[in-house]
């Protein structure tokens, strides 16, 4: 790891403050993050919407289930942005083996329900360890960070839910005068528009906006934890003050 090329100025931070740093990292890298994320997310969203033919609730569940796969692209872009490198779609395509397919079955099965997913994903995706070593490494990274990582995950779950409700409320705000739809009409009746289209579309829009921030917050917590374990902040200052 080339600490001196890191684009992030390190200092000891509390885990939740590190999560704020992640939000900043995502803002700065937005020009790389959102195009790459759109390239993987939009096909998944379209496919998920098609599954409404099987069951009304399926599109939402499909998107929710595939989130770890979507997160991999975001984390790839962010891990390069942390060193000041932008990412293009071509670079993402060339790295697909490592980013998209490596141990995907684990991400979508046993690791799917992890309550601190975005903190430990960098270990799985970026450190490239064997399965045996990975378990010990993850224990080391999340040591005394489980509680804050769970709070952070919960923040973005609540944020997503709030944005979902917020977007759906626009239906009532923007409806023409005298034609305000009733909730019963949208959920039941002849054509439950809200259940079939409204909720999945609003959910996907919320996921699209929030997911990069969630991954970035976890990635920054991971960087912060490594900086703490290996005193990266001190190395940054020493390399600046005592050039070879």
């Amino acid at each position, binding site marked *: 790891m080339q600490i001196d090329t890191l684009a992030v100025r390190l200092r000891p931070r509390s885990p939740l403050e590190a999560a704020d740093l992640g939000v900043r990292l995502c*803002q700065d890298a937005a020009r790389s993050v959102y195009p790459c994320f759109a390239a993987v997310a939009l096909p998944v969203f379209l496919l998920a919407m098609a599954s409404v033919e099987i069951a009304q609730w399926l599109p939402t569940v499909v998107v929710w289930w595939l989130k770890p796969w979507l997160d991999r692209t975001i984390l790839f872009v962010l891990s390069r942005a942390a060193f000041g490198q932008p990412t293009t779609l071509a670079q993402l395509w060339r790295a697909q083996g490592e980013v998209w397919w490596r141990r995907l079955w684990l991400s979508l099965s046993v690791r799917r329900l992890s309550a601190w997913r975005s903190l430990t994903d960098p270990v799985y995706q970026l450190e490239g360890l064997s399965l045996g070593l990975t378990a010990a490494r993850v224990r080391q990274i999340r040591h005394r960070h489980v509680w804050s990582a769970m709070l952070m995950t919960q923040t973005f779950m609540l944020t997503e839910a*709030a944005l979902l*409700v917020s977007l759906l409320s626009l239906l009532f705000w923007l409806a023409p005068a005298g034609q305000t739809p009733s909730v019963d009409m949208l959920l039941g009746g002849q054509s439950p528009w809200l259940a079939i289209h409204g909720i999945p579309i609003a959910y996907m829009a919320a996921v699209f906006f929030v997911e990069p921030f969630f991954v970035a917050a976890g990635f920054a917590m991971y960087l912060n934890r490594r900086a703490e374990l290996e005193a990266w902040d001190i190395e940054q*200052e*020493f*390399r600046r*003050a*005592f050039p070879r």
Partner: protein
Amino acid sequence: MRPAGLNPRLYAFLLDWVVRLAVIYGVAVVAEFLGGLGTAVWLILIFLLEWFYPVAFELLPSGATPGKRVFGLKVVMDNGLPVTVAASVTRNLLRFADFLPFMYGFAIVTMLTRRDCKRLGDVAAATLVVHDSRATGRPPLQDVAPLPPVRPLTPSTQAALVALAVRAPRLTAERLDELAAMAAAVSNDAGRSGRDVTLRVLGVGHWILGRRP
């Protein structure tokens, strides 16, 4: 100043909400025995808590509601000065605007997209929610002989040397030697490394902390 983002602010908000709810329920139990007057007082209390609970606490010297204090946050003006009455009232009345279109949609979007993590109320009132830097307790130091630095050091380098001395027990021996070797110039050991060099570099950190042989 270190602007505080969505994560700590959400939990500070939820904690304050729980405190308000507890007070409202507590008073409701008493008000039930007082009949109409009790209900009137109770309704006024709900109004006051909803709008002026944050104002009252933000104007205290700590500049923070109980929830913010638990998460180490405080409210300040953009220039770092204590928050004024007008600004505190503005940012808290405009929480109504942040609540729109529903469930704090605007607050979430502005806090995630603005570099200073402000919600609309903060923008209007020119206030900022920051992480409050508090001095931590005196950390235990290892027993190392203090040593004066052989060259002048900038404040940030001094801080890094002190940090190394304080955090030395929590680093692996190999990593500690590696870091000390980078700064070996401070004890005239440039180019050398090893346990002795490490002890001398740590000694410089102890010297900067004010310890003398």
